[in-house]
């Protein structure tokens, strides 16, 4: 790019904000994603950050696009560094086409000149009222580049800071004005952006996986959650706490995950629709309780938010390495269901459905997410809680009620104490049909069979995998959970009709169509955010099929579109 020439961005711009924890990058992300969306741009943002409250280096990537985007890319068109370490932190993504936009004092001599624009954000912030306004100034500069109406920003700021001191709102609005002013003086002739706006998009909903999952839980009738804080699962409990009065939800932070799980089971026993939400280490503590759910045939919904492990691992990073944990957790043999949302819509609808499935089959239902899915935002057209009817299976009991009555399909109607004339008895020991402890070998055998029989019923309701692309494919790419969008975009970019995608929203029980899909392919490729291809092993176990190529990533970061594309190009 020559001196004075304008950087041109067509169709899709990637902006990266990078700085220390505590500098307010999330505020910038929030202002930008909301106001860009309101202005009719498709947006996608994702974060990578360190497990600390202050300092270090974190980055947020925002894509602004003419078409819907919902996956991260490596390409970095505009970098806004907030701290001196920022350029080093994102150095692998820096290219000669990256425009660095910020203070010279931060990005240093190396980037002075053609590929940078010096914007004195701190000086302006001091004039407006202090460093704290740097974020609003930075957000306004970017918004101005995209020709976002300043009134859109102002009304967003009024809403966001509403209830605070009038001076804070006034200063923020002044900060936005100054950002726009800087943009028109220093930047306008250096950047040309050509991205389609869509008035429909301005009316879209924008949210992250956490919010979609929490609202899906409410839609599913969740009225009880007990939890112990653990990244990246905590956001779900926080959201439910914030809506607890409005929707009548008991939200309790408890002493440990053991307590959380046993409370969830007590709550279902007494008629609540309860959820446990945790991450790997926390779930490890819940495993004994999960086995109790298997024995007393209690419904339970478990949100297991994956992060890199073993042990504490990388607390704020992403991975898909707890599939085996979910699949094999709990001593003994009992059925379960594992759902794996891959989109914001999935996070909502699958969580909603999880409550129906748990209640209907009286089994644990997992919602397996990860940090990347939970903390990615993008715009979607709609979420309609009335699409899935809330199903409730509690029955009133009569005098002869037997909680574990043997039935043809293995499901015994579930009563709750205090509703009807019967007594509801559950026991972690093997029990007879009433729920009383027994060591009768015949009863034991029939109870084991009764519990396992439910798996046959569940099989009729498995969510089938989705085939995207040519049904007469040569190459079949397999994904589950959060790799849906990245694989879709990468395969789309390849423009080859010999590659199709088979995506799983439910990984267990595995849908019976799986083997046929695999057999039709000349070559099968699986993409997983783990080191050992856990889903590949599950497929092998249940279909006997060996997957040819495994694209695995386990450094704590999600796949980028370019990465998946490069891996698939050689096929």
């Amino acid at each position, binding site marked *: 790019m020559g001196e004075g020439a304008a950087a041109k961005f067509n169709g899709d711009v990637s902006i990266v904000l990078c700085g220390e924890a505590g500098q307010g990058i999330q505020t910038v992300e929030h202002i930008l994603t909301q106001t860009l969306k*309101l202005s009719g741009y498709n947006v996608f943002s994702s974060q990578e950050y360190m497990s600390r409250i202050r300092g270090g280096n974190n980055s947020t990537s925002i894509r602004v696009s003419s078409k819907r985007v919902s996956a991260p890319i490596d390409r970095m068109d505009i970098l806004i560094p907030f701290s001196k370490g920022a350029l080093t932190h994102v150095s692998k993504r820096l290219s000669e086409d990256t425009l660095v936009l910020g203070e010279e004092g931060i990005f240093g001599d190396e980037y002075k000149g053609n590929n940078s624009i010096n914007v004195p954000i701190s000086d302006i912030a001091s004039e407006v009222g202090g460093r704290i306004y740097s974020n609003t100034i930075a957000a306004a500069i970017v918004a101005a580049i995209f020709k976002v109406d300043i009134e859109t920003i102002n009304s967003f700021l009024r809403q966001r800071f509403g209830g605070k001191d009038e001076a804070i709102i006034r200063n923020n609005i002044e900060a936005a004005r100054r950002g726009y002013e800087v943009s028109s003086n220093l930047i306008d002739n250096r950047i040309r952006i050509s991205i389609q706006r869509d008035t429909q998009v301005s009316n879209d909903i924008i949210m992250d996986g956490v919010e979609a999952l929490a609202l899906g839980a409410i839609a599913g009738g969740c009225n009880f959650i*007990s939890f112990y804080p653990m990244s990246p699962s905590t956001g779900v409990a926080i959201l439910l706490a914030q809506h607890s009065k409005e929707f009548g939800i*008991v939200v309790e932070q408890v*002493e440990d995950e053991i307590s959380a799980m046993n*409370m969830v089971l007590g709550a279902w026993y007494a008629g609540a629709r309860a959820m446990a939400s945790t991450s790997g280490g926390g779930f490890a503590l819940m495993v004994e309780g999960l086995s109790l759910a298997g024995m007393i045939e209690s419904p339970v919904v478990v949100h297991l938010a994956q992060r890199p492990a073993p042990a504490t691992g990388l607390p704020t990073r992403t991975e898909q390495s707890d599939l085996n944990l979910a699949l094999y957790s709990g001593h003994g043999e009992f059925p379960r269901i594992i759902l794996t949302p891959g989109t914001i819509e999935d996070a909502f609808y699958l969580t909603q459905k999880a409550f129906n499935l748990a209640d209907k089959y009286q089994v644990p239902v997992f919602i397996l997410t990860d940090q990347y899915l939970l903390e990615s935002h993008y715009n979607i057209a709609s979420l309609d809680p009335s699409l899935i009817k809330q199903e409730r299976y509690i029955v009133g009991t009569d005098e002869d009620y037997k909680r574990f009555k043997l039935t043809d399909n293995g499901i015994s109607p579930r009563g709750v104490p*205090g509703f009807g004339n019967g007594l509801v*008895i559950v*026991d972690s020991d093997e029990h007879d049909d009433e729920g009383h402890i027994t060591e009768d070998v015949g009863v034991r055998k029939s109870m084991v069979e009764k519990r396992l029989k439910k798996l046959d019923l569940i099989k009729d309701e498995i969510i089938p995998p989705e085939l995207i692309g040519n049904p007469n494919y040569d190459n079949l790419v397999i994904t589950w959970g959060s790799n849906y969008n990245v694989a879709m975009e990468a395969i789309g970019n390849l423009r080859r009709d010999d590659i199709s995608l088979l995506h799983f929203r439910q990984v267990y029980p595995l849908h019976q169509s799986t083997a046929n899909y695999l057999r039709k392919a000349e070559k099968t490729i699986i993409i997983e955010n783990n080191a050992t291809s856990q889903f590949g092993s599950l497929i092998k176990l249940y279909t006997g099929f060996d997957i040819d190529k495994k694209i695995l990533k386990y450094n704590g970061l999600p796949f980028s579109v370019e990465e998946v594309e490069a891996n698939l190009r050689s096929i």
Partner: protein
Amino acid sequence: MDTKIFDMENIDIAWCPGCGNFAIINAIKQALAELEINPRQLAMVSGIGQAAKAPHYYKCNFFNGLHGRSLPAATAIKVANPELTVIAESGDGCTYGEGGNHFIHTIRRNPDITNLVHNNMVYGLTKGQASPTSPHELRTPVQLDGVFLEPFNPIALAVSLNVSFAARAFAGDIQETKEIIKKAIMHKGYALVDIFQPCVTYNKINTYKWFKDNTYYLDNSHDPHDRKAAFEKATEQERLPLGVFYINPKPTFDESLSIYKDNRQPLYKRETDIRRLSELIESKRK
């Protein structure tokens, strides 16, 4: 109400002849009958151990869960349906050992439940190892030279946490035990009753006679609203006091939850306001 309402027919009780548990379940049944508690509105919750089998011997709803985990389950049952009378009943190993963390935090949380702890100072179900409350000199197949860990003092711990109600009873006196249990059930908030009982098989120190010789009842000179006095009584070692040590009325867990502020309906009777949820989602377009 006749205690027979709680009687089970044709049951094979798993306890040793002479076990203190028999007296305790009799006292509990009498207390429940005298308080006119409908078995259908009663939920007993237990963990694992000899004492934890007790709910199998009453006619009532019960949740016999995992070792150490009776209190979280009981708390949730009460909070999901505040209309129920909820009693967590288990032994010293279950409540104070495996469930120690829950014991501490349930006292802090203060759900309106009763916690009856059969305290025989030894492990029965696993055949005679030391329990958290075992006395120093108790020898077992594991603690060959005698227990040297400091015995757990549940009443002192509970008072230190400013518990809502703490009492101690002795299974050898069904009448008084029944009266103490009645007070605990009637108390609004978490109510602990630590119940001394002999283990006729594994604890040869703390026998019926030992308890008779080494306990006495608190009399009117003890003010159960005086926390310091309660703590003093709880730490007495020479002879162990019985009766109500401490009463501290305070808001219960379920009362403090916003969802029960103007609606006492149990959760199973409530429906999700889907229209409101749609409105909330739609509000995110702006």
